[in-house]
């Protein structure tokens, strides 16, 4: 290799800043990717880059100046340049015909040739686009149709399948970025967040709900209204129900994979009236309190 100072066109006394400046000036002119048609540019660029690698490293420069190493020790590792692919590989996503699009619109043989070369470009699928969407708990069980407003002002209609779980991703085929040629567009991927409902807890396909009932409903039984994700239903509380008694509403849960439906589990919770109730107090005083000890099995 030639003397690196000569290659960069700087004096042996040049400062590090001068060397960088000289290198940048030459490299910008000689970089093979900025000179795709100039075969000689690659060799010239390599020489300049190697000279810079040597002289921009203070330690290497010192050893070179002292005659300890020669200029050939600074060969750059080989890598292929973008220009080696960009023209030949017609299928890459960076291909851009806007530099001659105006000529293609003409109606002559030349334009026809250009159009055919454009079609020769391989077909690549467009990119996928990612979006986020939040829905209510009830919508996640029953399914819903939502309209998503996109950053560019467009909209996307999204069908929420019944039984969707929090974090599930819905793929809308062909709603991503356009592709090139016959590659077709990418997909829109929508991550769906399910907003929790304080009343319901989902466990697999089943839904759990805690239902407050009055003392008389617990003792005497009766019909009560129970909320479910698809609307309230009537349920019969049997006589002598207690806090913790669990009732099963068949088919009121989330859809099961492979058909069928989970259940809603209703956990009863006996609630006394708020505040002092003299009537209740008088009644309970007359009740035989010795007859029942909930702690007789050693629970306390």
């Amino acid at each position, binding site marked *: 290799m030639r003397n690196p100072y000569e290659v960069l066109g700087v004096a042996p006394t040049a400062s590090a800043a001068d060397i960088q400046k000289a290198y940048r000036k030459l*490299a910008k002119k000689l970089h093979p*990717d900025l000179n795709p048609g100039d075969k000689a540019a690659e060799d010239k660029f390599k020489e300049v880059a190697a000279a810079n690698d040597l002289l921009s490293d203070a330690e290497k420069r010192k050893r070179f100046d002292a005659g300890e190493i020669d200029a050939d020790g600074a060969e750059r590792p080989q*890598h292929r340049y973008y220009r080696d692919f960009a023209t030949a*590989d017609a299928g890459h996503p*960076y291909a*851009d015909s*806007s530099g001659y699009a105006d000529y293609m619109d003409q109606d002559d043989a030349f334009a026809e*040739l250009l159009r055919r070369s454009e079609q020769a470009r391989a077909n690549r*699928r467009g*990119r996928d686009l990612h979006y986020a969407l939040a829905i209510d708990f009830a919508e996640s069980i029953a399914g819903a149709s939502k309209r998503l407003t996109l950053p560019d002002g467009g909209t996307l209609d999204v069908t929420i399948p019944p039984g969707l779980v929090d974090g599930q991703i819905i793929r809308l085929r062909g709603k991503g970025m356009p592709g090139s040629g016959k590659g077709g567009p990418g997909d829109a991927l929508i991550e769906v967040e399910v907003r929790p409902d304080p009343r319901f807890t989902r466990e697999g396909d089943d839904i759990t709900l805690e239902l407050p009932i009055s003392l008389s409903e617990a003792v005497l039984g009766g019909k009560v209204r129970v909320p479910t994700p698809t609307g309230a239903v009537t349920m019969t509380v049997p006589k002598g129900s207690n806090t913790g008694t669990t009732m099963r509403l068949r088919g009121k849960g989330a859809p099961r994979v492979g058909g069928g439906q989970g259940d809603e589990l209703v956990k009863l919770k006996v609630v006394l009236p708020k505040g002092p109730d003299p009537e209740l107090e008088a009644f309970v005083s007359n009740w035989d309190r010795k007859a029942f000890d909930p702690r007789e099995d050693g629970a306390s």
Partner: protein
Amino acid sequence: MNKQQFLIDAGLEVRTLEFWIEQQWLVPDETASEISFSDTDVARAHLIRDLKGDFGVNDEGIDVILHLVDQLHGLRRAFEQLHKDMASPQR
């Protein structure tokens, strides 16, 4: 090649790669479940690295240069096709 191999070949860190993809300087193939990169992507990454690192080009400048370089290659490809067609005009 997969993402890990690409990061090694292109000498990039994950965050840099993510930024470049976000800027659409690199457009890897996301058709399959795993993102994949071509040799063209590696070579293009080297060009971006040279522009940013060695030449001191800022992010706006990268956009401009890549756009012009891509147009230049588009022209070269069209030119090459024309050249072929003129050398052997049978269709």
